[in-house]
């Protein structure tokens, strides 16, 4: 493999090589060696173009909620994954996004919809309905390049640019570590985000990201995994927020100074809290353990990046097995288990009181620092409702985070009991309702006026 670093052209705009335009000639005075180099580059560009062109997509997203005009329309690239119209883009596009996404494949324009998202990967799959089968890009067996090596990325364009394929040249400046490593590249235009990256021999090596490129070898398996995943599944990244599957721990990266002092791994993650009945608990892990290995990968990186490494390595999905090694009192303890779906707390919306309540689960006790578990937690106060109307404007009688322990003299240890109490109150039709609650470490007593708010008619004469 040759090094072209002495010839790299630093400016992205200058490195634009317009293929087939006939505007490029070989200067007669060029030394033989230079000519060889030039020809080698030309060959490399052709190879990249041949490999990529049929499978390229070009996107335009219009986001009506963008804060400024510049961010309103975004152009970027992507690649075709299947004949049926699955397209891969290196962005997290939520499946409920209402942005309008147009995709060009070849000279054909389609409306694309976000299908799947993996925040751990930082990639989404969009779906179009093609008129004829597309040509998927072969992602199998990607190769890695070395630092300083020249690479090429190819993009297609929209009709404004006459659907010309553009090739950009860059060189790899370094490797950014992580669960999914990335090449740091010399500058490339924004349009190239999402485009495939090739080496001088036309071998696929990465996918261009913002200022970098993902090393495809690290993620091919997970990309196909994402493609093959059932509809509606997602892993949102935050361990204790994952909608899909749940490890069941609150994590904190170890302080590097503490790690050095105690001779512990600097990339460990404390399992600060293990939720009862979680996968982590069942696997034998306990609060205070230090996680040092996950799914056979030693933990890497420090600080917040260690979280990301964890999330990307765990790839939380329901019924997925996992294994981990922790340090406890200096001993290595190995555990394995199967990730589970995070339990959904029961909720209830009490329109006549003007509150929404939720069952209190352990994660809420930790997250909201609750001091009472026998009750239901107020999650929302409905504006203008009896609960919202306090002594003065903005001072509601009840507040989010309050734990109701009884209403109208009926204990409310859980949502079911709260619902029953509500039914009893509705049949009693009181004009005011006594509420006992816990707020922080203290208790409180208020009385809600049930004659006000939506449907209320005020005091009857």
């Amino acid at each position: 493999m040759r090094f072209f670093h002495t010839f790299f052209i630093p400016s992205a705009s200058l490195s634009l090589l317009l293929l087939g335009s006939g505007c490029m000639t070989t200067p007669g005075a060029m030394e033989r060696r230079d000519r060889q180099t030039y020809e080698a580059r030309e060959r490399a560009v052709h190879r990249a173009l041949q490999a990529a062109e049929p499978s390229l997509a070009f996107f335009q997203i219009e986001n009506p909620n963008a804060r400024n005009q510049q961010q309103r329309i975004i152009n970027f690239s992507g690649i075709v994954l299947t004949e049926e119209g699955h397209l891969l883009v290196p962005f997290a596009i939520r499946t409920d996004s209402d942005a309008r996404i147009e995709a060009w494949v070849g000279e054909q324009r389609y409306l694309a919809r976000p299908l799947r998202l993996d925040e751990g990967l930082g990639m989404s799959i969009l779906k179009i309905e093609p008129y004829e089968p597309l040509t998927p890009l072969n992602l199998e067996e990607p190769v890695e390049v070395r630092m300083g090596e020249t690479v090429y990325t190819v993009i297609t364009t929209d009709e404004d640019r006459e659907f010309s394929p553009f090739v950009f040249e860059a060189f790899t400046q370094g490797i950014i570590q992580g669960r999914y490593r990335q090449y740091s590249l010399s500058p490339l235009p924004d349009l190239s985000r999402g485009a495939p990256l090739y080496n001088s021999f036309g071998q696929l090596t990465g996918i261009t990201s913002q200022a970098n490129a993902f090393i495809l070898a690290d993620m091919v398996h997970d990309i196909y995994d994402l493609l093959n995943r059932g509809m509606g599944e997602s892993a949102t990244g935050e361990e204790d927020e994952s909608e899909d599957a749940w490890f069941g721990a609150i994590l904190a990266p170890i302080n590097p100074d503490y790690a050095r002092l105690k001779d512990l791994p600097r990339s460990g993650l404390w399992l600060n809290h293990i939720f009862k009945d979680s996968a982590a608990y069942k696997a034998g892990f306990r609060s205070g353990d230090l996680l040092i290995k996950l799914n056979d990968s030693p933990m890497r990186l420090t600080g917040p990046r260690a979280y990301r490494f964890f999330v990307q390595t765990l790839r939380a999905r329901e019924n997925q097995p996992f294994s981990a090694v922790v340090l406890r009192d200096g001993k290595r303890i190995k555990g394995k288990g199967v990730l589970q779906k995070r339990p959904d707390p029961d909720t209830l919306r009490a329109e006549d009181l003007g509150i929404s309540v939720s069952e209190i689960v352990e994660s809420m006790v930790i997250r909201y620092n609750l001091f009472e578990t026998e009750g239901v937690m107020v999650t929302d106060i409905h504006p203008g409702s009896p609960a919202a109307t306090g002594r003065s404007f903005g001072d509601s009688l009840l507040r989010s985070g309050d734990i109701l322990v009884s209403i109208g003299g009926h204990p409310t240890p859980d949502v079911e009991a709260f619902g029953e109490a509500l039914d009893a109150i509705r049949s009693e039709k009181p004009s005011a309702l006594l509420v006992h609650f816990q707020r922080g470490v203290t208790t409180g007593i208020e009385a809600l006026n049930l004659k006000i708010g939506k449907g209320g008619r005020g005091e009857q004469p």
Partner: protein
Amino acid sequence: MNNHLRIFLSSLFLPALLLAQPLLQAPDEEAPPVDPAPAAPFSSPITFEGIGSAPHVDIPEDIMEKVDPSVVSIQHEKAGGTGFIISEDGYILTNGHVVMGDDPELPTEPARRITIILNDDRKFSARVLGFSLDPDVALLKIESFAPLTPVEFADSPSASVGQRVFAVGTPVGLKRTFTSGILSNVRRTDLATETVVFQTDAAINRGNSGGPLFDREGRVLGVNTYATRGQNNLGFTIPIHVALDMVEDFKTRGRFVRSWIPLFFTGELYDELRRVLEVEDGILISYVMENSKAEEMGLKMGDILVQLDGEPVSARNYADLLDFEWSQTIRPAGEETTLTVLRGEPGGRTEHTLRAVLEELPLLPAFNRHVGELVEHRYASLGLGVEDYTDLHHVIHRIPRSTTGVFVKTVLDSSVASRADIHEGDVIRQVGEYPITTVREFRKVFDRELAKGETAIPLRLTRNKLDVITAIAPDYLMRNRKVILVATNEFSHDLDLIRRELLAKGATLLIATPEGGSIPINGDGDPLAADLAFADIADAEADILLFTGGEASKAFWDNEQLLERVRDALANEKQILGCIGESALLPVLASEEKLEPKITLPREFSGEAVRRGATYTGKDVESDKKLVTTTGAERSDLREFLQTIANLR
């Protein structure tokens, strides 16, 4: 009773109500326009009791002349405001925020150089006898040979809405300004204050703070304090009876001392509560802390307080409740009190008589309008400040009562502490292997670890419900540098600060006192042990020689051993000499010839220094060659002084 916490907690959840801002003349705030003629709020004439049918009548000229001599302008190094004389012998009332200092570590420290300017332009230096930020009241004293003209007080509890009022002050730095209006409300409770406040449409602007609000007879109704930023004709005034309730404590105790029975909350019986509880009058007990005196006396959550010391009590609205709470707050601690409560369900209630002794409320942590009363123990070099953890922290910051340790009050940005991921609000439970429960224990253990030069000091914290393990790794900018700190036998916060910061910077510290005796520390701290007596200083090696300041350090001036050591230090190019406050005269006195490097020192000694040929610059901190001096007036100066020394090589 427990008014403060009641107010604290209600205000904690009332961000929308914190719109009213104190009127301090802060230089960084844009001045709102002065409204010379506030619009009358009513379009048609309205009759109010006591003022006939003419709310727009002029204030009689003799009344203006009567009040003018009592109103004073207040200026100090940071800002200023207005005040008024309440006695012939020079007591002056103003707002607490007008005279407070700006040292977050010592929130009870007032501004240091306060000047009072009378209406005839006579100027006086003033002492702050005490101040509070809620109620926002301060008492000052000036010494005048001639008797001064005090104000006359109105009966503020009987003030009524619509009553004609006028304000006198020095708004936005203007000279004396009169504005007028009416009392718009006499029962404002929604500003998260501890008492009810008056609202007026008399134009009140920044600089009016602490000025009086007069009635038509020229009697003071209150102390003007807040205005609502961006709004017109919304000014707030602390009723004068509230301010006068605090005066005696300021005179005798130096701070306002509240009484309470720890620890319960009360609530007013508003209409809906009266209906569902089927009770007409009383005060609801909504919270009783476990294992507290209140619980011990037999009080229970849900009780209805109906009599206090045999007299009926009731609060049907929040203003009533604040009045009741205030009446208990100002009672003397130690007084016995009897509470009669109703207990049980409507129809089957029983009466119970409970007895308790009122106690002094402990020092307040920072909260809402209070910057707090607790002295923070801060290591600025580490960006970490801690304070003792009290029952009030437990309630305000929702920390389990079982948690013991010290409360993290301050974590400075980009500091060693923030790098260690310590958060404000954490409780530090353990330093190294040692559990700690008080700041005293913390400083003992932590300082020992610092003195050992530990590269990282492990800490165990409680953050809400989580146990957090981390380590703080000081930068030790002064590692391997030997410092002799020459001190008197008197404790001062400044000495403590210097010692602490030098330790946190990694210096090897030797403390020298006249006879080598230890220095007692305020409160219950262990005394600071000395390593040297002055007699040993001559032979002790040091990279840095530091002299503390303060009145007692004037004794250094004629101590030949010290002067000799200072001469050596001045002659030694490798040795750094640092002098604070009074000690900054030492290098001048020690020099046989004119002192070459520039110096600074307190203004009162500058004449002496100049007379002896020194170059006095008057800066807060002066560094020339290897001599560093500071006036030592502010803690920030001391910190800059120490940093300057740390940076010298």
